């Protein structure tokens, strides 16, 4: 077992792609760094915190990116976002088999404010363009910093989200919520609550994560291969039917959550008999339990890219 969480972005790429197959676009030696960070006395990085390129995955040409959570929290600035958008557009140009995004990000890089916000928006548009071109997009969320903000939204623009229990996927971080509305609203130091609210197991049970794996690079790689093999058989672009099914799921989720303020209550309503025991379950036991109860799209929505 080799932890995915503990790896840097640069180490995750060779762990996910076929050995020696990855070619990086605009590598660090090009020294294309942020033009804005110096203004705030903040150090730059030669790759602006993201590796983008193209490699083989199971022998097929797959374009990919890995965000470095240790640099500026993996947050998206002008250059970082442009590298992602450029890679996504190139994936369309070269008719990639799939796109694989290893996401670890706080969202918009506040140090680049307006430029970061527009950049994230361009990344979302480009992801949807890739899907419209018939190319599946798979997002992996398994890093220590999670995937938040605008990137938390972008992750759900992918066809499939793969997470580990350790991964977190959300919009606003618990500290931001606590600062805005108090510790009673969200105690950011209550780690168990944070993971019940935003972690992989919860997202998997609620239907926002389609594949959950152990924190192991081999498991993540296998899941990515499976996800892509599955997706290429159907429609990966947005469809009215797919979005109606997703809207239905989200409306039902809202209804079923009436009066519930604790994630364990939501799991109980899904039919889980021992919600308190969920965080302790090992991966296999959890997946077996989840198979019986997890929410998702109704069966009528088969054959669409929306999961």
């Amino acid at each position: 077992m080799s932890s995915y969480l503990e790896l840097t972005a640069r180490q995750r790429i060779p762990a996910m792609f076929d050995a020696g197959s990855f070619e990086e676009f605009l590598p660090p030696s090009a020294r294309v760094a942020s033009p804005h960070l110096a203004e705030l006395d903040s150090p730059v990085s030669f790759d602006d915190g993201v590796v983008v390129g193209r490699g083989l995955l199971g022998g097929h040409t797959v374009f990919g990116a890995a965000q470095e959570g240790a640099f500026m929290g993996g947050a998206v600035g002008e250059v970082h976002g442009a590298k992602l958008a450029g890679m996504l557009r190139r994936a369309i140009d070269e008719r990639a088999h799939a796109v694989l995004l290893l996401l670890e990000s706080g969202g918009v890089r506040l140090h680049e404010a307006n430029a970061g916000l527009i950049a994230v928006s361009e990344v979302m548009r480009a992801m949807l363009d890739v899907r419209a071109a018939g190319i599946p997009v798979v997002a992996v969320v398994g890093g220590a910093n999670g995937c938040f903000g605008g990137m938390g939204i972008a992750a759900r623009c992918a066809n499939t989200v793969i997470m580990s229990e350790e991964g977190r996927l959300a919009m606003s971080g618990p500290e931001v919520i606590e600062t805005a509305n108090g510790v009673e609203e969200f105690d950011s130091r209550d780690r168990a609550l944070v993971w019940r609210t935003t972690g992989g197991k919860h997202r998997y049970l609620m239907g926002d994560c389609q594949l959950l794996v152990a924190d192991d690079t081999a498991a993540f790689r296998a899941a990515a291969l499976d996800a892509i093999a599955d997706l290429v058989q159907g429609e990966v672009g947005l469809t009215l039917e797919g979005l109606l099914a997703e809207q239905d799921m989200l409306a039902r989720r809202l209804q079923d959550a009436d009066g519930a303020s604790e994630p364990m209550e939501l799991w109980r309503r899904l039919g889980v008999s021992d919600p308190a025991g969920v965080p302790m379950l090992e991966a296999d036991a959890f997946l077996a339990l989840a198979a019986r109860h997890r929410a998702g799209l109704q069966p009528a929505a088969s054959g669409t890219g929306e999961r």
Partner: protein
Amino acid sequence: METLQFRFGQGSRPLAGNAQLVGVVGSGNLEVLIEAVPLDGACEIEVHTAAVGFGATWGAVMEDFHARWSLADARISINDNGATPAVVSLRLDQAVESLISPAAPSTGGTP
């Protein structure tokens, strides 16, 4: 932010291979980009650091580094976010080893 430059002439050990990057620019950490570049046998090192006023310390670290490796025709570029001298030395050594070691991949990286 501060930028420091060092140059050591007449190195004896040349490098070969693609540019390598080690480390990440996280708090207390740094990234080191190392490239084989024709420099008349010299080793040039440029440091961009968030920690200002430690020129003498950096100088000492670089002197030790050059004494250890005596690189020729090497360009080293550093983005530093407050790493200690011990961590800097470690990363520099990792950077050199990434180029000297025969199986260095083109996008490797050590935390």
